[in-house]
């Protein structure tokens, strides 16, 4: 159990060469071995979604995977969402619409929403509510999360309206 393996994790376009036990979860490896602590641990059994990352274009719970299973895949975390100093439309919208309070669940919601909007830019309100029901937030009561994601979706479809452009 304690024999360590050398693996490479590709996070936000950058390779991290790490040495981990086979049993180490992906989220622990991202946080402890790669030093990216924006991905949070809320329940360790795949319910809350605070640890959501995008792995080869799919949103996954990084608490339910082992780090060794993620070798050779591309992983996106909240740290890679902004383009340099330019925030992603979702990040701006969460701020503008007060879509976060304590901010602990926020990285998970951002990654869930980012992947959803990239793959389904024309998602309707009902489908969006369905998707966003897969993560838990304890502070906001969700209504501003929905508003923020809806606003970002509209902006991403009409980038001309993007105030940063």
């Amino acid at each position, binding site marked *: 159990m304690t024999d360590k393996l050398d693996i490479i994790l590709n996070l936000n376009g950058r390779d991290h060469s790490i040495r981990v*036990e086979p*049993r*180490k979860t992906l989220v622990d490896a991202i*946080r402890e071995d790669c030093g*990216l*602590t*924006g*991905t*949070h*641990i*809320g*329940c*360790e*059994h795949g*319910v*809350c979604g*605070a640890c959501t990352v995008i792995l080869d274009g799919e949103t996954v719970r990084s608490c339910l995977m082992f780090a060794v299973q993620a070798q050779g895949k591309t992983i996106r*975390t*909240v*740290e890679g*969402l*902004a383009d340099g100093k330019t*925030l992603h439309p979702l*990040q701006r919208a*969460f*701020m*503008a619409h*007060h879509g*976060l*309070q*304590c*901010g*602990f*669940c*926020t*990285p998970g919601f*951002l990654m869930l929403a980012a992947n959803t909007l990239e793959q389904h830019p024309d998602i309707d309100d009902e489908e969006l*509510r*369905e998707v*966003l*029901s*897969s*993560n*838990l*937030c*304890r*502070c*906001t*009561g*969700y*209504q*501003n*999360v*929905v508003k923020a994601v809806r606003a970002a979706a509209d902006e991403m479809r009409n980038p001309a309206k993007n105030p940063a452009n």
Partner: protein
Amino acid sequence: MNDTTRATQWIGQSVERLEDPPLVTGRGRFAGDINFSRQLHMRIVRSNHAHGKILSIDTSAAKAVLGVVAVWTAADITDIGPIDFREGPIEKLAPYRQPVLATDKVRYVGDPVAAVFAEDPYVAEDAADLVTMEIEELPPLLDARDAPGEFSPGKDTEATVLYQGYGDVEAVFRDAPHIVELKLTSGRHSGVPLECRGALGRYDASRDQLELHGAAKVPHRNKELIARMLNRPPSSVNCFESHVGGGFGIRGEIYPEDILVCAAALKLERPVKWIEDRREHLIAANHSRNQHHHIRAACNDDGEILAIDDVIHHDNGAYVRTHATRVAMMTCGVLPGPYRVPGAYRAVCHFRLTNKTPAATYRAPGRFETTFVRERLVDAIAHQLNLDPIAVRKRNAVTVDEMPFKRPLEALGEEIHFDSGDYHKLLDQVLEYVEWDKLNADLAARRANGEMVGVGLVMFVEKAGLGPVDGVRIQVDTSGIVEVITGGASIGQGFETVMAQVAAETLGTDYKKMRVIHGQTDRIEHGIGAHASRATVMTASATREAALLVRAKALDVAAELLQAPVDTLDIVDGEVVRRDRPGGPSISLGKIAAALSNTSKTLGGRDPGLSADGYFHVEHQVYPYGNHLAVVKVDPDTGGVQVLRYVIGYDIGRAINPMLVKGQISGGFAQGLGGALLEEFTYNERGDPLAVTFADYLLPSLRETPDVEIILTQDYPSPLNPLGIKGAGESGINGVGGAIASAIDNAIGIPGAVTELPVTPQRLKAILDARLKGRIHG
């Protein structure tokens, strides 16, 4: 004492939060994100038995694991007493405090028995699994209504009996034309923040400083408590708050784990990190709410409540933790809510211990429970006397002419004085907003068509702004950035933004040029923290006091430097300007700060630094108020309840940032929805907890949570502070249990059907099935 009418630049504006940029980019710093060089990782071994005598504990196998540095049981920390009360010693309750590690008995599943310290968190967990213990099982006590059992030799599990009241209850009941009686239960649930608890202890021998990182809510109070428990001078202990992933009353109290990381940092001379997992959180962090009420009201024919007599069995779980009897005592004091109850009142609370997780405060402690109980009672009075429930509420609610309204009961040690407000006006606003008569007619028509839909409404009074005093230090650096150093705490509510808005308003600067400090006990001597919806009322008022002093000092220096009378000067965007000469000479706050440096030639006889300390004192809390209204639909096949619509009317006095106030309300509502319908810590007959994951303990997701319609009024600014603030944190959750219970009654057409929260599908299905049987057999 109010300056609420002046035009404002920042106060009252829904500006974006200062907190957000790091949080949306993954650069937050929560407890789990903090690491120190050479740190050890702690894992707690917990009791798997609800009640039993500890015969032996074997740590040898755990100690033999490579990477394990130490394994402690109670025998290793005999110099550390039980977790003490936040407010200081209470002799009668002292025997019921929780040991840091269980000594002779275990009293709930989750009770800490041993602590493993290892080089790696996985190794610590492996080793913890190897700690074995022999426990002689004792019968668990699981219902606070059952006869008390033995807590320890000579002490039974009824730790105390609390009382609040006035008047001759027996006489009023004897003469009253009507008596209405109910038995009601509020279920066991809790705050359950998304971030589990975390604590890091570190000892710096070079300076003899002990540090607790991951502190929250009440860091200054905890500094004192840790010093007391570890027998150290308070000046050698400091607490550091970082980002906190939700507080809700339960996070930030001192628990056994906080003391253990501190004690281990001292004894093992290495930093010690502990991060709780979710199962631990659900069985070890404070639970709340579990009370049984047997309540009676004496009434007149018109529904006037003459007297209330309530016997409460408060289930506090296994021990009395830092809050002592706070929730139970508050329950006794705030139960009458907005209603007059002129004749007599008596609340007797049996404060009892059971073999379940210890309980303490959770957002709106004593109010979520009592609004449910009181408003059930009012509905029952209306039904029994065949009166309109709204008319009964209006008959009893205190009127604006009776303000300020004093009641010989107490909340948090202060006599209750409702400071201001018009409860009737706000109720009418809510009724008008929903078109009450039309809404009821529509729902009746839908019920006639076979749908189970209904509406319920409650009135409530909140309380906020617990004193007695808060202090803030404001200092401007030579670049013009303003540091607002508070003894407050941020648990995710937007504390920094609100303080910055108030400081910016008073000083005449941009709120974004503020650096708001909280929860750092080495930056300011005094602080109380963030609880009892006190932060905005108390800390923002102190911020204003400090900002006024800094402003005066800045203008005094500027008058000298600009050679202009003080009364011609103003501060605009951080620049002191002459009001009478637009575009004329000006000087920035940064330059004034430089002119006040200790080596400056312009310092003169002044104290150096553009800085000041401001204090704000109060004698009484403030009492905001509101209404909750729920429209629900019941599925007769499953007993499931869907909330179709939810309306909250709330008078905040004055909102510093309405967007954040509404955020507090909608977030509180979602938690209340959980407590009303979904969330419950259940146990089997052996006292094994059955809700130990998020698959069993159901937090509301977006799917269950409708948008809240919020009617936020500012009709009655509080006369008790200069900004008129009344506090927002607990208004969204207060009435949810009561409103949804009432709406369910209405939907299923059985008055008084709901007697217990949460109204799970199983409970509601049982109610519906019982009615069906009654019909078949009746």
